[in-house]
């Protein structure tokens, strides 16, 4: 298939997954903001902006971290390339370019999200509950995912879509965890406090995994268990282990179909091996933040390798 087509498919998946994550972040933020505050540490919203990597851009445009501004910035703001509106628009635009590589149901899912977004943008802001916006986003992300799984031919295009999904999801999981650990708990004595647990629970909730977690682990919520669930547990749909396994699978299928391996397969294998071989104890010894930073950097290198091997069209 054309490299540019593969690139468009890959970005459809990345943008929709990103929109989904931003919606989850917004949900976490609003939930935490319902808690009594005045504990004296930094606002929750700050940490969420850090997670999107857009804290600086936000401060420049809006200044103070007021919830309403953050909602605008993360949902509607077209100047923010990671806002839900920007992501859905970009995903649909990528889809429009490769219409013929999509089934009508996949296109329908993308196009409907975009058309409804335009309606939302015309509605009066004060009438839009945040929960309605986040539910709406997650529903459309799920509809697209469902249309892809149910109707798309299992060819190379399908693999590129999935590679986009897994790369983005792994990156998002790592960033969400990192922000919770690093920004919220700068001082070690907070770790293990009741508040700490509550925030971890909220994190699970954001990933739609709170119940799943309890089924899988039982007992008290501890940092160790959550780290195991979100990093190493192959049952968890958003864990790094699940994401790297997905990447290995789809890159493996490409290598088989094309009859050759590239640097991307090497990098995916070593990324997966790094997750599999690390015990939770070892991760905490190294430092969760250090571990996650390393994962994010290596995943970015993998993304570059995929780009060079398949998406750039430079491969000879």
């Amino acid at each position, binding site marked *: 298939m054309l490299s540019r087509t593969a690139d468009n498919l890959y970005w459809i998946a990345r943008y929709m997954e990103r929109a989904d994550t931003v919606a989850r972040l917004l949900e976490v933020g609003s939930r935490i903001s319902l808690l009594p505050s005045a504990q004296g540490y930094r606002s929750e919203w700050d940490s969420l902006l850090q997670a999107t990597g857009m804290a600086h851009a936000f401060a420049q445009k809006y200044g103070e971290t007021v919830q309403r501004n953050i909602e605008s910035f993360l949902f509607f703001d077209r100047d923010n390339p990671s806002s839900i509106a920007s992501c859905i628009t970009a995903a649909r635009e990528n889809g429009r370019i490769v219409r013929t590589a999509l089934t009508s149901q996949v296109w329908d899912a993308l196009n409907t999200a975009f058309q409804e977004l335009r309606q939302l943008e015309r509605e009066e802001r004060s009438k839009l509950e945040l929960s309605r916006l986040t539910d709406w986003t997650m529903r459309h992300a799920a509809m697209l995912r469902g249309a892809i799984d149910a109707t798309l031919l299992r060819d190379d295009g399908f693999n590129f879509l999935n590679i986009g999904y897994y790369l983005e999801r792994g990156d998002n999981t790592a960033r969400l965890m990192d922000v919770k650990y690093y920004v919220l708990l700068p001082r070690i004595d907070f770790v293990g406090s009741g508040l700490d647990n509550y925030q971890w629970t909220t994190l699970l909730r954001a990933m739609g995994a709170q119940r799943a977690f309890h089924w899988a682990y039982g007992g008290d919520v501890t940092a160790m268990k959550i780290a195991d669930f979100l990093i190493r547990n192959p049952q968890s749909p958003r864990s790094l282990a699940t994401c790297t396994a997905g990447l290995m699978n789809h890159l493996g299928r490409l290598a088989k179909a094309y009859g050759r391996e590239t640097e991307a397969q090497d990098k995916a294998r070593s990324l997966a091996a790094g997750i599999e071989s690390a015990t939770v104890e070892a991760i905490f010894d190294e430092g969760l933040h250090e571990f996650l930073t390393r994962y994010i950097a290596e995943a970015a290198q993998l993304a570059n390798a995929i780009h060079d091997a398949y*998406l750039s069209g430079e491969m000879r």
Partner: protein
Amino acid sequence: MTQFNEMYQGAEVRLPYARLKDWVAQMPQELRSLKQAEAEALFRRIGITFAVYGEGGDPDRLIPFDMFPRVFSGSEWARLERGIKQRARALNAFLVDVYGRGEIIRAGRIPARLVYQNEAYEKAVAGFVPPKGVYSHIVGVDIVRTGPDDFYVLEDNCRTPSGVSYMLESREIMMRMFPDLFRENRIEPVDTYSEKLRRTLSSVAPAKCKDEPTVVILTPGHFNSAYYEHSLLADLMGVELVEGQDLFVDGEYVWMRTTEGPQRVDVIYRRIDDAYLDPLCFRPDSMLGIPGLMDVYRSGGVSICSAPGAGVADDKAVYTYVPDMVRFYLGEEPILQNVPTWQCGRDEDLKYVLANLPDLVVKEVHGSGGYGMLVGPKASRDEIERFRLKLTEGPGNYIAQPTLALSTVPTFVEEGVAPRHVDLRPYCLVGERIELVPGGLTRVALKEGSLVVNSSQGGGVKDTWVLAE
């Protein structure tokens, strides 16, 4: 001026439309509204929209679709088909000639200036004969009708005529909405177009290509107003839809960038203008083109459809000479007539045009899409005076034609059914063989009395039927 309504002969319904009389009479108003809404939803759903440049507003605007079909009998069509194919052959013979020895000019049948000083004449391909001697592989001939047997060619489109997607989709939608109509009438299918197009393009692959040729469609990109059509044709033919950035030149061939490495390309059906094809040969600032493409083309490494330079045959000033081309190259009498045309660049013609502006249609020689034209009988005095000034300043830029009494076809309008003016664009395919699917794009001027059918000026489309004999 009496206008020919294609459905009637006096009070009698003409034979091709016989069954449509009951169909429309028996359709209740509610059903009609329902079907119209259904058609619109289908068009929007498949994404067949049309962007109008410089208008702002909705970039995904729909072209209005009228459900009342336009019908030709088998014998009417047979004559049209002969005329169109004849014209397509003559135009291609002309192109090979003017990029070769220029016999028609030596014979004094067409002025050298009109050809060699024409902006569309590409010096870069002089002396080059494309595979099978075909320059224009898809010839769109715009035809109007003024009476039962009177057809006139309004203009030829030898470069990249668009609109064929409307022919295909209008038919799909009509068959879906009114299957009974298709059972009752024996209507020739048009969906063979994509297969015929693929065969035509493959048949002009360069001699160097020994295997099944790789065909691609080259599009300016998804912001182009005809992008939907480009992607539909690519999909129907099962070929890649590429942009300039997807192709590159290496050695004596053109390659496309794929996830499996470079793949050789043999035939490029381009939907971009000559000027943007190759920045090394034409416009150096083109971001759309492929550097080095023309060198590969001239050395027989790739075919380009339509061939660069084909535009010189569909210039509005050259148009006047097409009947002469038919006589000169084919030794036949033209089956389809031209609309009588005055060349404002000629003194005596200009004099006539200026004296009769309120009765004439004046067009820019290089204009398209119904922009920059004057429809005398519909124009205000101010507009006429403005055109008079333009004509005196640059007469060579204009041609003028009489206002034809264009035929009408019944059309669904607010108040019911009323006659509206139509034209016709069939798409003639020229490769190893010359082929024409029975049908085309019928454009309809939806405004009462309007003669301008262009979609940018409020025109719509109809399904075009050719009945099997």
